[in-house]
């Protein structure tokens, strides 16, 4: 196997917030009955986390699990471990009706950090990103200008944003414009 390369190979930008492409992140789309115990155990074994409830995200670094829909989770594992974790998961789910697929290479991940991180995203997503409405531990799927995206807060000043790999260049350019110097909004 040759060295895998993420969509933008760790590109970064400093404006009113810092924008970084995070590199490769192991990701598994898991579809199934989220109340199923076998599925819960498979998730626990892969990530150490319980199955999240509606719009919850249990993420610690590059490991975790996010609620994507009533029958879909996004499982995060270190990139190097994704094939092994997927195989274990598929094996564990053998008897149940579920679908687990590796989507690590189908995505790009960005980090927006700094005091204005929420504002930068608030220019692109039609979502209430105020602290009253959005907190670490939650995930939101929405749009980033004209493409689909999902995001959560790692902490008060750090957002992680996931989009399709093919849109990585577009999203990075969007984030750079939204973080351009002098564009502080000053509401959060």
């Amino acid at each position, binding site marked *: *196997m*040759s*060295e*895998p*390369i*993420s*969509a933008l190979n760790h590109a970064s930008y400093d404006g009113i917030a810092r924008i970084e492409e995070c590199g*490769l992140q192991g990701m598994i*789309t898991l*579809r*199934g009955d989220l109340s199923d115990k076998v599925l819960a155990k498979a998730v626990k074994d892969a990530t150490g986390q319980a199955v999240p409830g509606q719009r919850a995200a249990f993420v610690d670094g590059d490991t975790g699990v996010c609620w994507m829909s009533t*029958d879909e989770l996004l499982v995060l594992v270190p990139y190097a471990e994704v094939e092994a974790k997927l195989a274990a998961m598929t094996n564990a789910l053998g008897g149940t*009706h*579920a*679908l687990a*697929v*590796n*989507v*690590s*290479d*189908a*995505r790009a991940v960005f980090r927006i950090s700094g005091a204005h991180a929420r*504002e930068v995203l*608030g*220019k*692109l*997503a*039609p*979502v*209430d*990103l*105020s602290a*009253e*409405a959005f907190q670490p531990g939650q995930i939101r799927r929405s749009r980033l*200008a*004209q*493409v689909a995206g999902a995001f959560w807060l790692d902490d008060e000043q750090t957002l992680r944003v996931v989009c*399709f*790999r*093919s*849109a*990585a*260049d*577009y999203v990075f*350019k*969007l984030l750079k*414009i*939204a973080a*351009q*110097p*002098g*564009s*502080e*909004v000053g*509401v959060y």
Partner: protein
Amino acid sequence: MSTRLAKQGRLIDRTKQVTFTFNGTSMQGYQGDTLASALLANDQMMMGRSFKYHRPRGVVASGAEEPNALVGLGQGNRFEPNQRATTTELFNGLTSVSQNHWPNLEFDIGAVNTALARFLPAGFYYKTFIHPKPFWKHVYEPFIRQSAGLGKAPDKDSRDADTYEHFYHFTDVLVIGGGVAGLQAAKAAAQSGAKVMLIEQTAHWGGRAPVDGGTIDGAPVDKFVEQLVSELETMGNVTLRNRCMGAGVYDHGYVLGYERLTDHTPGVQGPRHRLWRIRAKQVVTATGAIERPLSFAGNDVPGVMLASAMRDYVVNWGVTPGERVIVATNNDDAYRTAITLKQAGVDVLRVVDARDSAGPLAEEARQLGIRVDPGKAIAKVKGGKRVKKVALCNQEGIGGAREEVECDAVAMSGGWSPVVHMWSHCGGKLIWDEANAHFRPDPERPPLGANGEGFVIAAGSSNGPLALGEVLADADAAGKAAAKAAGCKAKRTKAPLGETTAEAPMAAVWLMPANADIQLRMKSWLDFQNDVKVSDVQLAAREGYESVEHTKRYTTLGMATDQGKLSNINGLAILADALDKDIPKVGTTTFRPPYTPISLASIGGEARGEVFQPIRQTPMHNWHDQNGADWEPVGHWRRTYAYVRPGESVHDAVNREVKNTRENLGLLDASTLGKLIVKGPDAGKFLDMMYTNMMSTLKVGKCRYGLMCSENGFLIDDGVVARIDEDTWLCHTTTGGAERIHGHMEEWLQTEWWDWKVYVANVTEQYAQVAVVGPNARKVLEKLGGGMDLSKEALPFMEWRDGQIGDFDCRVYRISFSGELSYEIAVPASQGQAFWDALMEAGREFGVMPYGTECLHILRAEKGFIMIGDETDGTVIPQDLGLHWALSKKKEDYLGKRAHLRSHMADPERWKLVGLETVDGSVLPDGAYAVGEGINANGQRNMIGRVTSTYYSANLGKGIAMGLIKHGPDRMGEIVEFPGTDGKTYKAKIVDPIFYDKDGEKQNV
């Protein structure tokens, strides 16, 4: 003359001089000036010319309602026409030019129109430019185009140099308008704990109350405003924005705020405008009121101004528009202007009051030595480029027995109209207020929100009350009501006490004098920007335009960039009078957003330049870009059309790729093809419904080409399906189809067959997919090694295997869209570029060349393979394309099956797919129609088919094409005619659509 006063000017900083230019002349102003106040300070009374008659015009208002003082601002990439001088904050280096004149503002050829005004009444164009008919195209239209358009469009080569952005904001209560009413409403709402946003279009808080005077809780209004603003600034639940205009109120509490960030500080980093996309549970409109002009002859001469505006110029900017002023009014408020002017040392010659008696303010004016003339009117203002004198008469009567008074400015006041735009945008209704002669919001009929309850509350003078005390009480109540409606508990606090001099009732005076003769009415302006006069509206009424919306369009009343903010009501009143109806019966025209024009770029936001729309890139995108890719957009994807080498034309490159792929080895980046995983115990059953052919019987390890139809029976997609294991299939879609078909599958699973056990996942972008095509395809893969057996026996045509090629884990599909020996190989996207590099390197000795989409198209066309989007257009069914073999007869049901039984679908007259070969070997024009015998009802030749794909085939050395032709398959060998748009008629023979390797031997080696 208009001049700067020694004192006054609460908004200017006299220690900071600002230099700017107007029509190339350098002028001085102060920081805090608007362009309008600075021009007045420089005695630049005339600021432009009107649109239709090119009459000299000066500034008439002091705010957003200004119809006359429109200028071109900035230069080069930052030039913008039609900017209101009254809302343009002055800055060092500002450049402005006046509009609608040639060769210059002072001497304008177009002003001849004003002499012809009597021949250019409302409807002139409609009536005149009808006959003779040929004149329209060659005389009238060019003439009208020449004179159309307000201001000058920016140079066609200029590009907006600024950036713009959106911001999504969510609040409990949004207050629009930062006058005393808005400030008080915001405070009342915020005290409940509600999240409040307050936006104000100007740079200053407090609105016009500090100019109008009075006290609040015993203190001057300025003081009250200052305290209230600092109080709001300390409240964590309040967001304050000035220079941010409420542009429109829309369904479900959606409001657009237009923030002008750097218009007043050019050169500062950051976006120029920000469009706030606000969702508010409740909206309070505290948008104030706008003074109306009076209609008298010559009310458009530079120097005639709204009384309130004149007061603003004195108090806010220390500028007086004249030295000898006459005030004309139908209400008490205008006396404030007379008093203000007098106290500033300006000679107020008299107040002409259409009423017989006035209130205490008139008394105050008299005591200052101002002459007050009750029952009087202005018959006519004289002067061309500025006011010279005024002819006075009795208000009752036709305007005889005039007295002439020399003066240089006229202040007029026709009463006040609440700014009801924000209330009305989303359906709020109005009622007529007889006492104040204006329309105001009807609280019983507000705009309705998602819960069916009202979500807009009007506050302060935008709700009707005009006196300070009532305004504050109303605003306080509105703020509390909004907080309550937003789910918060309002605090029981007392509204501040506002006190001003009491006012006597106004009189509804729509024309001065009341029975002005036609000569006067023809010079009495209603719409200053579009040059609509009292006589025009009356003419419209006489000609039968009874509906206010029709009159508007016939006369263009209120259709200018100011949308009739100033005097639409005057026009309605004139119309009502002409129709002998009550004003409420005539009604208003519709208020539509935006409140004032906003920049188009702010609406676009970030979506311009390289992020105008998403451009999707494959993992090998940069390589293609560096290797001569001529790009083709396919959906949002960019695919390589051809790899053009130095010295080659695109056409040359395509021909080279076409020959090389058939003769040696070609590589295609096929990563964009959709890949959907469909898994579950019911997946086979589900795919049998999705595809017209049978997918449940496909064996593990094998591939099958499938067609998808909509429920209407029309082809929507195609692609190769591979069975991965017992309950898993991988479905390839077209490049543009991945998201659409994924959505299509989810739709049927979620909304029709929700009890079927199937999951779908879109893994399109997980893989980089490369088609390795040509006689040397196997050789290059075998050279790379990895241990996979790629022989005909181990991996036959239409099968797939997982394995390793070189260092790469991959899935290899033995499928072909070219008719050549072909492997489509999927590797993880993160290794796509490395895999491509390895293939290019290993393929060198086998004559490898990458090829683009045009080559792909030609190769498939040579083989007669259809392409979704070329051979199909949403009206084509599989039967039209000779794809009967892909329609399962065994299946009871699939999407489209029932539709194919409909009579039109089974009609033998449908156009059917054939190959087309020009008689002379040339290339048929794309999309050309085939013509048959006879003509249709429109006198056009009957059409019997069309070209769907057409190319030059370098392999065959001639043009080849496919098309849909009536009875086509039964007409093999016949010649059909295709008239081209180039005037030539192309002749082509109907042939079999497979031009190359009819038996398919090359792909099966």
